[in-house]
């Protein structure tokens, strides 16, 4: 019954989405206000949430008469993964996607009280149209509630790589980001329909963009760390198409986040901001297509079914095509915003947007190129780090330099007087650069330059606070400072860990000692051990470096359902970086393969990501607080 209740809720929600679309654009409702459409959007969101809860319930109970549970779960699985396993598969993760789409629509209906009513109605119509397509996708090609008759005796289990606490947070966080951008898309479409693109629209879009962007930032950061410790390869970003699928919406959302501020503060960049809002969610849909269609292979792509790919591609083409046709028809009618000069905050933000767009284009083309080539000529190829680092890396560093400059400029026009303050950061940057070139000759050029740029940005990020009374500085300024400083921190982490990592790969007998970087590691033993649904061989390593001794226990794990082996790295975090150890295979003569990395400052990568997210949260908090106070004063 639980599965049927979930399915019924989905059908009901889908019909409401259709109604929402029709009512929003029906001529009769033009004068009737937004109330009916809003109520429908709220109920539709509640119903999808209910369906998701039902799916989680059948997973929690391991109801093996539901096909999805039988194929992806197991009675002996730890409860946490039973619960999160609901989205550890294609159908469940699409349902999570649609749930967030529905809930975002309800939230838009609930909280956007102070915006143009006609625009809101049209936006809710657009949101209904989006939901309708993805409901159809769920119901016709990815039904999560299909029954299995007779029920299975035991489930097939969850991919062990996914049996990690990361599964609980990573997909929902990332999806909140992906799908949160749908609201920006819908509001942009709504504003194009009514022709009211102004600073009020920007203020309505901004919290959505900020919120989605915070979740995307945290989701990407957490995903990077998850891949880093789970895969046992010691890398934190592989330029895997699936990673790029999350990076592309982030790049677009970052650009949007900045241009929406221009629109809110100065009423400029109207058409451009609307365009970016549509591009950002289009990138989310491209990402969903890449990951969910099965054309790529990774832990993210579950069972492959070509019909699903075609369906998703059709949806993508429909929505992106419709949005851009609307843009082409309407954007010419938008009035020009106030002008600005070549040296101004606006111009710097235009620079930011252009650079982010170029980077986005490069990542987009690099990610899709192999798919195009294979579809057209049948030639198989892959595009990896050498391309992305070489082509996008330098642009990212140029952007980081621009980040030092932009916040020091005034809106509209600027004499450039305050740019003189950049002397100190620039000097610091050059000093670090010179030291990097002397100390590390022949190392990666991009990373060495990156260190210099990061040093400059690390100091320059604080310049907007210079000469201000700190307690009276608005929270939004702090937010910018923290986020920009986070960028510098992340760049230091990336550059330093690339330049300074020490790696040792040996075959050793228990009792032998190995040194890597500042660490002396004693290989004590390999012993068998077991967990709830796995057995393992576990090495004991005693690592010492000046200060105390730490014990690391990397494992080779064997899962029984499905039968899979995984490598569990053991990581020791110290203030200076991380010691990363992996136990390999037996190497004969009682020896074991050990792979050890000393990765100085690597933790700064994720710390930087967290700071960037914190900056976003501060901005959102500051704006909400300001809005709240204004509302109370009235």
């Amino acid at each position: 019954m639980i599965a049927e209740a979930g399915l019924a809720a989905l059908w009901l929600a889908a019909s409401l989405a259709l109604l929402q679309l029709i009512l929003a654009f029906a001529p009769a409702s033009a004068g009737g206000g937004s109330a009916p459409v809003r109520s429908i959007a709220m109920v539709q969101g509640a119903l999808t949430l209910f369906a998701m809860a039902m799916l989680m319930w059948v997973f929690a109970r391991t109801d093996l008469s539901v096909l999805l549970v039988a194929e992806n779960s197991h009675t002996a699985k730890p409860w946490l993964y039973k619960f999160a396993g609901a989205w550890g598969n294609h159908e469940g993760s699409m349902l999570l996607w649609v749930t967030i789409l529905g809930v975002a629509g309800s939230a838009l209906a609930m909280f956007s009280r102070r915006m143009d009513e006609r625009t809101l109605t049209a936006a809710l119509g657009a949101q209904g149209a989006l939901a309708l397509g993805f409901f159809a996708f769920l119901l016709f090609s990815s039904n999560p509630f299909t029954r299995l008759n007779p029920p299975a005796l035991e489930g097939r289990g969850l991919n062990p790589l996914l049996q990690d606490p990361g599964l609980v947070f990573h997909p929902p966080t990332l999806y909140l980001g992906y799908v949160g951008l749908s609201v920006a898309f819908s509001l942009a479409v709504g504003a194009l329909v009514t022709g009211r693109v102004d600073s009020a629209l920007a203020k309505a879009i901004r919290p959505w963009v900020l919120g989605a962007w915070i979740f995307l930032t945290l989701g990407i950061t957490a995903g990077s760390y998850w891949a880093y410790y789970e895969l046992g390869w010691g890398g934190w970003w592989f330029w895997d198409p699936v990673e790029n699928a999350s990076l592309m919406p982030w790049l677009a959302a970052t650009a949007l986040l900045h241009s929406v501020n221009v629109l809110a503060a100065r009423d400029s960049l109207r058409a451009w901001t609307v365009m970016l809002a549509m591009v950002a969610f289009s990138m989310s849909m491209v990402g969903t297509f890449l990951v969910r269609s099965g054309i790529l292979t990774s832990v993210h792509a579950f069972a492959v079914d070509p019909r699903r790919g075609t369906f998703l591609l059709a949806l993508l083409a429909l929505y992106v095509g419709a949005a851009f046709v609307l843009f082409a028809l309407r954007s010419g009618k938008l009035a020009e915003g106030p002008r600005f000069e070549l040296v101004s905050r606006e111009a710097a933000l235009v620079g930011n947007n252009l650079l982010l767009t170029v980077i986005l284009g490069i990542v987009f083309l690099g990610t899709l190129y192999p798919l195009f080539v294979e579809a057209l000529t049948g030639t198989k190829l892959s595009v990896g780090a050498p391309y992305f680092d070489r082509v996008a890396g330098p642009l990212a560093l140029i952007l980081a330099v621009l980040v030092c400059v932009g916040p020091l400029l005034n809106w509209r026009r600027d004499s450039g007087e305050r740019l003189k303050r950049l002397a100190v950061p620039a000097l610091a940057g050059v000093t670090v650069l010179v030291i990097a070139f002397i100390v590390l000759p022949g190392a990666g050029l991009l990373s060495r330059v990156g260190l210099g740029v990061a040093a400059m940005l690390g100091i320059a990020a604080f310049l907007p606070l210079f000469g201000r009374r700190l307690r009276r500085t608005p929270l939004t300024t702090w937010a910018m400072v923290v986020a920009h400083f986070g960028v510098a921190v992340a760049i230091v982490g990336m550059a330093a860990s690339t330049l300074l990592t020490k790696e040792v790969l040996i075959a050793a007998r228990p009792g032998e000692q190995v040194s890597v970087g500042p660490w002396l590691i004693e290989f004590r033993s390999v012993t068998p051990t077991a967990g709830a649904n796995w057995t393992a061989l576990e090495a004991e390593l005693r690592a010492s470096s000046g200060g105390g001794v730490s014990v690391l226990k990397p494992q080779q794990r064997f899962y029984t359902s499905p039968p899979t082996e995984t490598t569990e790295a053991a990581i020791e975090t110290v203030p200076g970086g991380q010691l990363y150890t992996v136990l390999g295979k037996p190497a004969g003569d009682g020896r074991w393969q050990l792979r050890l990395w000393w990765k100085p400052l690597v933790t700064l990568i994720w710390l930087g990501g967290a700071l960037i997210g914190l900056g976003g949260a501060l901005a959102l908090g500051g704006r909400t607080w300001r809005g709240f106070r204004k509302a109370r004063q009235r």
Partner: protein
Amino acid sequence: MTVKPKHQRLVLILAATAAVAAAVLLAMWGLRDRAAYFYTPPEIASGKASVGQPVRLGGMVEQGSIQRLPDGVTIRFTVGDSNAHVPVVYRGIVPDLFREGSGVVAEGRLTRDGAFVADTILAKHDERYMPPELGNQAAEHKAAKTVER
């Protein structure tokens, strides 16, 4: 420098167009020599891949070909079928599902003496997580077998 409103929009449109064009040009420049092509052993044997270029080699690990070198961390094996064999050298920890007679994708370079030096080895995971290249090969393999019967 002041720009007239009408011109400002034009300047912005031009800048955006230039940015997109720049992205396309940069991407084409980068993709020209930095994409790693996927080859099968017969293609490598017929000299399709050039020496020193990053390439991916996909096929089956031949029975009885895995050889462990004395250092304990380097292995040699051959990838191929009855017609073509490519010797591969890899220093590192092989993935859990790497074994003789099963599918593998090796990323690396071809050396002058015809050996393949792999930087990364990807093995066939269980049925649901197989690299598509191998998926196709397995299907072709099956088809070939059916024909033989």
